[in-house]
């Protein structure tokens, strides 16, 4: 298992490097002066054109691309992400303020969707071809067919504006306890999670039906186990593995969706900041956010992958999956 873990982690490094390189190239093509992104605006205002040229030289901005990439990467690792060319604030500050909110949002959405997806997926598999199955199947297709933001707007209109159960806009951590901020989280997380929940439900149903046809489920019944134990202990546990593959696959979409949902609800996260940055042409900030969100999605996928590997002794104990023949 340790070997698997280590090799999985080692594989992350080249991935992150390549993503960061692509992002760096994007930065190269961005129509903005890199200098403005590297110097604090206070310092900049007191500089002459000659000073700036000298600065450029001393900062190595005229160096070959690969060298600059290396330097940029080292700076990133040190936590120095440069400055926003529009607002002039250090990007590190922006990130550390906003990234946690977004992670909180996506995590909540993941929880919501996993819970709902698994629950209804399992129910409709167990009661296949019943009314529950039929209704949830139809709702599932409708769910994956709705644009996230449309669900979001509808939810906003219904629960925040008409019913006033939740705040309509904005979110702030200041002065709010844990429960205070949950209020702002419920609608965005549910809207974001709904699409994934629908996809997950459809998938869980199929995975469960698949497992329920397996011989070992028959063995479990032949032992005289009660049905709930057959479902819970023998079927569900095995269907988790394919389900987690789907979650890993869909996770990037969830993170991408958070950008849209934050916009709908005016939720102050990194996603809505990303949009402002794009509209303002704040390329340095845009690319750093993209890089970070990609890394978050990468890490989360690996985490889920490892978690399921733990469930499967064939992976956990190493050796080939085929096992002893």
């Amino acid at each position, binding site marked *: 298992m340790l070997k698997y873990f280590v090799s999985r982690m080692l594989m992350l490094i080249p991935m992150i490097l390549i993503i960061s390189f692509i992002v760096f190239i994007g930065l190269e093509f961005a129509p903005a002066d890199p200098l403005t992104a590297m110097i604090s605006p206070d310092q900049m205002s007191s500089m002459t054109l000659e000073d700036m040229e000298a600065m450029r030289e001393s900062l190595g901005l005229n160096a070959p691309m690969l060298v600059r990439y290396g330097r940029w990467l080292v700076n990133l690792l040190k936590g120095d992400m440069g400055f926003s060319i529009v607002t002039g604030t250090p990007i590190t500050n922006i990130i550390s303020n906003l990234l946690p909110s977004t992670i909180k949002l996506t995590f909540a959405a993941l929880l919501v969707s996993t819970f709902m997806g698994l629950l209804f997926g399992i129910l409709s598999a167990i009661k296949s071809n019943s009314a529950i199955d039929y209704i949830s199947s139809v709702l599932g297709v409708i769910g994956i067919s709705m644009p996230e933001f449309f669900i979001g707007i509808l939810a906003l209109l219904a629960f925040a504006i008409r019913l006033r159960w939740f705040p309509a806009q904005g979110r702030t951590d200041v002065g709010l306890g844990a429960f205070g901020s949950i209020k702002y989280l419920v609608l965005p997380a549910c809207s974001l999670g709904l699409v994934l929940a629908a996809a997950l439900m459809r998938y869980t149903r199929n995975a469960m039906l698949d497992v329920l046809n397996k011989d070992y489920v028959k063995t479990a019944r032949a032992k005289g186990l009660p049905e709930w134990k057959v479902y819970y202990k023998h079927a569900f546990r095995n269907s988790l593995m394919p389900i987690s593959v789907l979650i890993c696959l869909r996770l990037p979409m969830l993170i991408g969706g958070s950008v849209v949902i934050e916009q709908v609800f005016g939720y102050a996260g990194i996603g809505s900041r990303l949009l402002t940055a794009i509209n303002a042409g704040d390329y340095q900030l845009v690319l750093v956010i993209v890089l970070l969100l990609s890394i978050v999605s990468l890490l989360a996928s690996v985490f889920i992958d490892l978690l399921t590997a733990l469930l499967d002794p064939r992976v956990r104990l190493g050796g080939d999956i085929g096992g*002893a*023949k």
Partner: protein
Amino acid sequence: MNNQNEARDVLLDLKNIKKYYPIQAGIFRKTVGHVKAVDDVSLYVKKGETLGLVGESGCGKTTLGKCIVRLHRPTSGELRYKFGNKYRNLLSLNKKESLDARKKIQMVFQDPYSSLNPVKNIFTAFDEPLKIHGWSNADERKDRIAELLESVNLRADYMYRYPNEFSGGQRQRICIARAMCVNPELIVCDEPVSALDVSIQAQVLNLMKDLQKELGLTYVFIAHDLSVVEYMSDRIAVMYLGKVVELASAKRLYYHFEHPYTEALLSAIPIPKIGGEKRQRIVLEGDVPSPANPPAGCRFHTRCHKSMDICKTQAPTFRPLKNDPDHMVACHLADTADA
């Protein structure tokens, strides 16, 4: 050797065929060992005979069969085949010769369900090989296909049907007809009836026997079921863990087996008869060892009921018996010519 081949009318001569698969591990796919699927097998097949290859799963019989058809390339060894009256190594042919050799050696596969492309009708399945092998006239091809289908007792107009419209037995007959469409001399039959129901097996086996007689075909017949192999074959080679351990005529093998593995195999097969002489049952212990890590010495010694000390260290060579040079055994106990 060549004279001997001529004398025996040998069609195909396998010399020291080895097929090793590398085992790769780690991120860099380093080769950490080899699965010795076929390990130094020498056999010959006479024209017009059926050579049976029998053994349990993983003994390398299918791999050997696929090496003969050149679906796998042996790691080392020679495959000498008689073209006209000249022997050529099948592994060193140029492109044109190779295509020509493909016409001579064909194969029938185990699973009739996966042997036919589900999205192509039978006509297409036959048409392309015919085209490649020089049947340029479309009408002639169609007549040929009709003729082939009729030769395996199927209606000619079945050629426009798709595989899923046929039962397993019919499919296997189609596969046999397909293998014959290029007029091969040698057909390697890899477990052709093991996927079929018992009542259908006999249809296919008899059909194969009839075709052999009619067309003078040579078969290499691979199966795990010794009774089927015995029914079909003139000579039988018993394989264990990549090696041939015994080779004898089908008639002789049942009563005059020499190798303890053959003995165990024979005694393990349930016979659908009651009464008669009581057979002595030998139940082998344990499982077949992994071909990636075969035991030293004689590969069978870990399960052999007659194992001796020498078996653990020294691998017996595959030699003819003293009193019957056509009967070959790889066992220290056998009374072989040079022992």
